[in-house]
């Protein structure tokens, strides 16, 4: 599998490390339901068959965190973006 890094270009997947679903957002730690919200944030993950937005880290390249749209059934990469921009 190869991932098109927006900075480095098309690179072998071995240069990246995988974190997982990009959807969970770190909850507000001051909110009254913070304990439950953090539990969901840390432990609960969907496992979709199909397109998924994921976080990958280009550790052996530009060291940028990327949001990668990947089809989990085919490993087709549908798009990539810097995490800083994709989530702000």
């Amino acid at each position: 599998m190869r991932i098109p890094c927006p900075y480095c270009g098309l690179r072998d997947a071995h240069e990246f490390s995988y974190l997982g679903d990009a959807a969970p957002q770190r909850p507000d730690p001051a909110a009254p339901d913070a304990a439950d919200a953090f539990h969901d944030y840390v432990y609960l993950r969907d496992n979709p068959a199909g397109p998924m937005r994921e976080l990958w880290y280009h550790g052996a390249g530009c060291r940028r965190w990327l949001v990668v749209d990947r089809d989990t059934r085919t490993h087709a990469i549908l798009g990539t973006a810097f995490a800083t921009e994709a989530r702000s």
Partner: protein
Amino acid sequence: MTRFVDGGLIDRTRPLAFTFDGQAYRGFAGDTLASALTANGVRLIGRSFKYHRPRGLFSAGSDEPNALVELRTGARREPNTRATTVELYDGLDAASQNRWPSLDFDLQAAGGLFAPLLGAGFYYKTFMWPAALWEKLYEPVIRRAAGLGRAAEAPDPDAYEKAYAFCDVLVIGGGAAGLMAALTAGRSGARVILVDEDFRLGGRILSEREEIDDAPSLQFVARAEAELAAMPEVRVMRRTTVFGVYDGGTYGALERVGDHLPVPAPFTPRQRYWKIVARRAVLCAGAGDRPIVFGGNDRPGVMSAQALRSYAVRYAAAAGSPAVVFANNGYAWSAAFDAAAAGVPIAAIVDVRAEPPPVQMERANRRGIRVIAGGEVIATSGKLLSSVTVRARGRTETIAAQILAVSGGSSPTLALTSHFGGKPVYRADIAGFVPGVLPPGLSVAGAAAGEYSLARCLAAGAARGAEAANDLGFTARATPVPQAQDKPITVSPFWHVAQSRGLAFVDLQNDVTAKDIAIAHQEGFRAVELLKRYTTLGMATDQGRTSNVNGLAMMAALTGQDIETTGTTLFRPPFTPVAIGAIAGHHREKDFRATRPTPTHAWARAQGATFVEAGLWLRAQYFPRAGEADWLETVKREVTATRASVGLIDVSTFGKIDLQGPDVGRFLDRVYINTFSTLAVGKVRYGVMLREDGMVMDDGTTARLADTHYLMTTTTANAAKVYQHLEFCLQVLWPDLDVQIASVSEQWAQVSIAGPRARDVLARIADAPLDVSNAGLPYMGVAQGSVMGGIAARIFRVSFSGELGYEIAVPARHGAPLARALMEAGAPFDITPYGTEALGVMRIEKGHVSGNELNGQTSVADLGLGRMASTKKDHIGRVLSERPAFRDPDRPTLVGFKPVDPKDRLRAGAHFLRHGRSAVLANDEGYMTSVAFSPTLGHWIGLGLLARGPERIGETVRAYDPVRGADIPVEICRPGFVDPEGERLRV
């Protein structure tokens, strides 16, 4: 008589000597081991997997199920090589396998003793037998009976390589279709890689007497090779097998660089493991000849019709005479005609079809070959085939024959198309499976797509090659295509002679018989994937290339379903076996992974240091001196000298992360449990960071070098992990923070000196105006300046040992000179270099936690660091670290231990039990994490995690260590055995 006087693609001017089972033979350059054995009349080549039945050659290619041999001797011995793909070289030494005492006479086959044990499902059924007999009886018996070759017992002396290649169009297979695909794409200017597993391009053209453009087809191959060789963007890789298709247009391939030589040429590997990234690929892998299942179909001399043709035409050899052909299709007839023309007498063609096509009958008549239409082979005889019994139109006849050439039709070689999950599709008109949904970017041409005639192979290769190139923006033309025969496919589906005598084998390699298919059906294992696992049909080196279709067709007949509904199993990589050595490449033994020497490595080695691996790093473990009995004595000396005067250790392996920007303080407040925004410039603070789940992730000191400039240190083990975590926090969680970070672990060498005379040593190398007095550089301070006459340095007054200590950082290239300068400056104080063992002893004496305690399962409270956490701010891991279970007072918590009897030795890993309680899990109260012999105290000490530990100081518990047979009373004490108030640090 077995090698014809002329013909064949062998070089009769280059004879090669070789041995098989110790017997000397001769072949020629251009032979395979299989063709050379054939030319020498050797018909018995191996014994079968389970039943030790005598076996000969079945095929002439990589789909060979029978002829597995051990190649070479000693450390280079390689089991299970297919004689059909081994290129002959002078001095080749091969041996048959899976036989005892000899290939000709095998005791286990003679008895047939174990056959009843080994039928369908034996892997599963045997587990149901009485367990008591399993280890001593069944397993050894089955292991001895069912087996293949022996692996070499010495390390492989050869090298293996990994390599990468990139191209526009990858063409897999160099036969008629592949050559046309490569030519067509190559002519357009596309970068083309053409791979073929054979040592010679041409595919089936090499084995068939055909014409292309009204000339012998070999001339076409020669012209194509020459044109490809002249194209600068085309690379032809012979002896290379594409074994797998992966994501993103990546293809795995194995190049046999030196397998055709006695030993690889100097400075070349034996094999090269390729990752080929191709924008498009064209699969031109051809097709394989399929057997027919009948009684006695495994006798040496029974082979595929196309193998008979290949040995006769390409290698000018036949292992006997005459041959009988048994088939259901016209392609087998053309094989018989070619073999006859090359010199093999054909006694008869037996065809299951009652009325073969007249055009074929006419061709046979013209050659004077007898045809038995509507016939079936029902038995064979001879240890090596001597006759076949044929039944036709109600009467039987026995025909003398040393070769029985069988063909049940062609099976497209489509395994690679399945690697992405594409299911092969059955085509009744050709009685075979063709590729289904293809992997992205891959197309199929020629026989691999069920397009069998030579004309169609050439045209389809050109068309697919042109499409691939045009897809990528090149301009390729698929015409003109060379002219060749376009004979139609004539085949009548036929799988199994039900009324025949003797064991009828479906899978020759795994000894799966027609009866095993019937048992699987009876016992309910009818789905093809279950059939495969239950009977082992289609497993091992040939991956069922000659057996799958017959097996599932027979299951279809038993269930009454059609073949389309029954379907076929999926193929997975690798297509042919790949040696583990090739996958490992150079990554073996010492080169398994990189080794990182520290900046002072050479210096430490010169001091006689023993080294220890710490992640990728090699660190000095201790520095033994002459006369010291063991490492313990050495470590005692190093600790004592350091605590009495001064010691030195390289700490460059700690992770170092440079952080700059106006928001660094705020950022550190969020990643550490304690506060760093308030840290004064010129000060250092110890910090602990958590994972978001509340467990401790790492610890270390962070210094504030300037208002907007901090320097963090991490543990050696977690340097990369912490760096990645910080980038995650900055880029994903808080992109609004203005912070830049960079790893500077490699850029700085760092040497620690510790002990009451440390300042005296430091003062001797510090350049003015650097003030290293207690007032100028107090405990937990950092100073920047220079040492050794102008070398930029950062000096951190920190301590892991509990002594007055400094860590001196200089640019990495000055690390070894720094160590030497400190040794020289420390000589008047007997400065002592020490290693990680002494460091470990001193930190346990001091009660500091380290990797054994920061094990991913401990909270700050568990480690006695709970009070460090700031309650005024949020930080990573805060919310979940406040969960009730983290606050459970029964959680094992860090305390110190000493043996009640000072002579007792403590062991890390020992579990704590209250006196009088039995040693069961329910009574477990925690365990010892770290132990050391304390030279300072004169007995063993330990750290451990104990339920309610801090409330139980002075109590004694059992340290129970069943693994090493220890069970001793230990006293619970506070961690911090030496200088608990930390007075030595501040002097």
